[in-house]
């Protein structure tokens, strides 16, 4: 079944073909994960929300117009679902902002500990980025998408995508080297 295009996968999934829907999920999972992570950050319910997205996708497949791009249609569902999850649970869940930079449990070698610390810092810095920058950056790194693919999925001009990514990195680098930078610009408010 490899090599089938989106329209064929959608048609087969609508006929109840489990294998076709599995392929559809596997193809778009990195993009959906990136979109959900862009809204929710490193919360522990990200995986559940990603699954919820695909369940919504399955139930709405008959409403998908074949002239539209499947990835951008799924992206919109993913972003909306993540925003709903954010609104539903923002008080009940640990957010990146609440994350303590304490030493991870168990003794670790110095280098490993430092890397873990850097990763946790990076999550905090990402949460302080402008939402548009963060969503594009997540698609680039977590979603493993090219600039052209991001442009298509998010409906942004190619130049804008490049510019957002470069600016996002410049801001992250600034926060890394000047830890106080961007502290008052927390924008994880979808």
């Amino acid at each position, binding site marked *: 079944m490899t090599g089938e295009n989106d329209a064929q996968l959608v048609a087969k999934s609508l006929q109840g073909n489990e294998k076709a829907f*599995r392929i559809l999920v*596997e193809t778009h999972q990195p993009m959906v994960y990136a979109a959900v992570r862009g809204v929710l950050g490193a919360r522990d319910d990200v995986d559940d929300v990603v699954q919820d997205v695909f*369940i919504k996708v399955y139930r709405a497949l008959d409403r998908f117009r074949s002239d539209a791009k499947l990835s951008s249609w799924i992206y919109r569902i993913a972003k909306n679902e993540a925003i709903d999850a954010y609104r539903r649970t923002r008080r009940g869940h640990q957010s990146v902002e609440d994350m303590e930079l304490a030493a991870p449990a168990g003794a670790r070698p110095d280098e490993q500990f430092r890397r873990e610390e850097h990763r946790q810092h990076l999550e905090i810095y990402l949460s302080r980025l402008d939402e548009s920058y963060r969503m594009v950056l997540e698609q680039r790194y*977590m979603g493993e998408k090219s600039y052209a693919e991001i442009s298509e999925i998010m409906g942004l001009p190619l130049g804008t995508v490049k510019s957002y990514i470069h600016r996002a990195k*410049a801001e992250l680098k600034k926060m890394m080297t000047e830890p106080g930078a961007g502290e008052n610009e927390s924008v994880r408010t979808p």
Partner: protein
Amino acid sequence: MKCDQIELLFPAYVEGDLSASETARVEDHVRSCPVCDESLAEYRKLEGLLLERRESRPPAALTARRVVRRLGLVRRRRPAGVLAVIPRMVAALSGLPGIISGSLIGAGILLLFVGDAARSSVSQFGAEFLKRMPVAVDQLLLAIDRLTRSLDTSTGGQEWVPLAGYLGVFLVVASMGSWMVLRFVRE
């Protein structure tokens, strides 16, 4: 080029997204500028951390499996080839036809090996019952008695004849029953 202009090119440089001339310009500059060299090292470190974050993403196949399970789309996998027939045959033979044919074989063997004793005990039992039980039971016992006697007479005491008869009945019942159960299992 000044340092702040060069630094603007670093994000694209670490991704390999610059033209050959821009790349050369960046590399020339950082060789002679320790401050920009350090800044470029920071961008490289950031690039590494951003790439490492992918490790936290679960495998796509795992997500697909969970979603399919939650949607109830998972179908029972059946073994292929010869192995596929075995469970169906077991299901077919362990049902009603198995019980009927098993009972027939058991009754046949019993009558063949303890024929005389069985006949006499059935007769005695029947005679006793004649006095006490309703007419239907009486008729049934008489029919069994007549059947065993007539079998004995017609076969001239050859035991293989009733055995073959029982086996024939067993095969007919078993095949019809199995066919019906297989149809049910297949559906």
